[in-house]
């Protein structure tokens, strides 16, 4: 039914956006939307709201795993480097210490672990969030600049199988927003 509205040229429809004043309202709206069976929708807020992802029935635990594996790699690289250098590549008698003085390799191993893990955290997080993405259709929505200040938005995207211009708008209005608008974007 997504072809209910045919937009051949000019701006494409990205979806309907509803604006709320309070975080609680957004959470309620999100829950209802999810219950209503919508999948392609997202909520926008000027700060993280606890319970919102749950309300949206959204789960993703990949970031911690990425961090973990990066950490492991870091540890291996750190210790491996020192072991290779002092035992294989150029073993030397340094102050009578054995070539493989593992005790003294601990600090560097630890630092490498943290370094890799931290890089993993940031790169992984932004990567999964698909950032950097300077352009996004939702930026074309009315009032959206306040999404980074004091307004809360819910967008149901046209790509959603259940999306229907009329029905969706009515559904959104039923959630008690300050206003509902159509988001038209150059690129979706």
């Amino acid at each position, binding site marked *: 039914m997504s072809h209910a509205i045919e937009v051949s040229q000019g701006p494409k429809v990205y979806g309907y956006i509803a604006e709320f004043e*309070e975080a609680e309202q957004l959470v309620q709206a*999100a829950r209802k939307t999810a219950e209503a069976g919508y999948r392609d929708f*997202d*909520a*926008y*807020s*000027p*700060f*993280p*709201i606890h319970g*919102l*992802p749950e309300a*949206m029935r*959204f789960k*993703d*635990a990949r*970031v*911690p795993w990425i*961090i973990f594996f990066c950490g492991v790699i870091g540890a291996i690289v*750190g210790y491996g*480097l*020192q072991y290779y*250098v*002092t035992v294989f*590549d*150029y073993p030397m008698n*340094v*102050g009578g*210490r054995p070539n493989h003085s593992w005790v*003294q*390799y601990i*600090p*560097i191993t*630890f*630092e*490498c672990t*943290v*370094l890799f*893990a*931290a*890089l993993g*955290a*940031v790169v992984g*997080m*932004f990567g999964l*969030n698909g*950032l*950097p*993405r*300077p*352009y*996004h259709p*939702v*930026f074309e929505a009315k009032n*959206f*600049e306040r*999404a*980074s*200040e*004091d307004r809360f938005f819910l967008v149901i995207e046209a790509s959603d199988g259940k999306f229907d211009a009329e029905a969706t708008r009515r559904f959104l209005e039923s959630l008690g927003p300050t206003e509902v608008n159509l988001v038209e974007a150059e690129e979706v």
Partner: protein
Amino acid sequence: MAETLTKPHDEEPLIEGNQTYASLTETVAGVVQRQKDHPKAWFVAFVLGFGLVNVLLLSITYLVYMGIGIWGNNQPVAWSFDIINFVWWIGIGHAGTLISAILLLMRQEWRTSINRFAEAMTIFAVMCAGMYPLLHTGRPWVAYWLLPYPNILAMWPQPRSPLVWDVFAVSTYMTVSILFWYTGLVPDLATLRDRVKNRFAKVLAGMGSLGWRGSAKHWMRYEQAYIILAGLSTPLVLSVHTIVSFDFAVSILPGWQATIFPPYFVAGAVYAGFAMVLTFMIPMRRWYRIEHLVTMNHIDWMAKIMLTTGLIVFYGYIVEVFYAWYSANPYEQFMMWNRWHGPYAPAYWLLILCNGVIPQLLWSKKNRRNLKLVFAVSLVVSLGMWLERFIIIPVSLHRDFLPSSWGMYYPTIWDFGMFFGTIGFFVMMMFLFVRFIPMISIFEVRELWSRIRPQRAEVKEVEA
């Protein structure tokens, strides 16, 4: 302690006054937006800092041209101001990470108003610190040999050396601090992007914010990453100063070879760090009218932490004395005697005064809430922590095992030039920071407000 701190004992809220998300945003972002009306103090401080930066550049140029000989270092005192300042700055940096990471993990909500500022401090302090290990080498142009890279010499760094550990520790610390800081900054840059009028600033903020749009899904991953970063930074910050303390602890020099060093250095770092945060925060909150965000409570708590860490450090001093006696090692015992009665004894007793005695004023709540006094104490503590490193480094070196090679150390103007130069650099960077970057994490303040604000009904009344 965590308990008492989470719920402010008296009813003073973490954010004072009747605020809205907009008003909070306005307070902080406004500082950056309204470039016109900056306090006079800003210009004074900036000019001061910039002047000293030129001193720094001059000192560095002359240093690279002439050699380490322009400093007072000698045999036996081969390290002095260079390493003192390195340790001092690294230490100062630690408060930032501690506030943003450890307090975050401990759910200390009051950190919200100061973490951004403290993190920035970390980064600049580490920059200052980083200069010294590089420039104190006799041939800085080959200092890159400390990095491991496959080369035609078939040579590698020597991973048993604490200096190589330093290279890894400090560079990791620098990287992670920047990542942490920037991650926290992204949503606020988005705010700026959406608020500022100036096209150029807008684009800059836009690029910096990576197209952040506050999607709930993003927020979720964001928080996952952020909390784990905090979890990583916490052991990191401890490890960094531990490793710095290894520079001394792994040696065989009396006064350096001490197992107490790691904890005692870390405590010292936090001690100095909070002193520095206070030194800046106390005037800033007035100049930028953010007293309702950085409240007297904040000052109070920071003072408490200073007091606590100060006591740990002082314990360290006592333990050193105990070790000297208990070790029954004549060299250790002489080292202690020399600190007390030797040619540098005044420095030692001044250290005890600065780090041990004066901070005890902070036991009294009245004092903790006396801005002038807290400010003074934090300055004293900064000096004290510098003296501590002076006692540890040159004073241990100048009289070691063979009396025949004992000597004295006298700094030259170039030693001071480098020291004050870095201070200038730090001041300059801090003031550039407050001018161009939100000095308080706006989104966290909003988040905090959303939870601690009075009930909505009351808000409605207020609005009506």
